């Protein structure tokens, strides 16, 4: 069971792909996912913020992750 994480903007450039697959044992929560991503890609830690979205909603660190979820890393937004 692996988790797929979509990447946008500067996080896509840092990771080098628009979707990354995290194999089992996959992170169980948003907080674990962020820690694992920052471990693999230390440049993510230099960003002003890095949020996680689950099914199009911003998610807190305690939120559990499931393989069916649509998961994305959200670097600082700058629309408008």
């Amino acid at each position, binding site marked *: 069971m692996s988790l797929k994480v*979509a990447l*946008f*903007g*500067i996080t896509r*450039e840092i990771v080098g792909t628009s979707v990354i697959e995290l194999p089992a044992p996959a992170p169980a929560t948003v907080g674990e996912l962020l820690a694992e991503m920052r471990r693999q890609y230390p440049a993510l830690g*230099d*960003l*002003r913020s890095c949020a996680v*979205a689950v099914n*199009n*909603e*911003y998610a807190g660190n305690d939120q559990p992750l499931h393989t069916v979820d*649509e998961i*994305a890393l*959200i*670097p*600082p*937004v*700058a*629309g*408008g």
Partner: protein
Amino acid sequence: MTPHLSITDQPIDIAAALAAVQTDTAGAVNSFVGTVRNQSGGRPVRRLHYESYDSMALTQLGHVVAQAYEKWPMLQEVAVVHRKGTLELGDVAVVVAVATPHRAESFAACQFIIDTLKQVVTIWKREEYEDGTEWVAAHP
């Protein structure tokens, strides 16, 4: 009163956005138009690239507009159109249009929507300069 929300890679039709919110019951139509300017922090900008996570951007935009309806119950119609892709200087990046019976709420709701959009909607801006590019607001 379903809001007109869209993200497009085509040039934005400002008149169409204004027309979408006009209604006989609202005497005040207020709009904000964001365009691409030629400098950022004193650095000349050649063009901009907007990248969007469309499904989440529309979900979050819907939340922003729902908050506006809660704050200003008299708010009647709302349209938000955001461009993505490559934009040249002077191109329209975003249009927010609102219609209310009276003008004070119209100004306030329009400003709330554009300000909140910039905080939560998943659209990213990369500025292109003479000597490189940079993702806006990415770093402290």
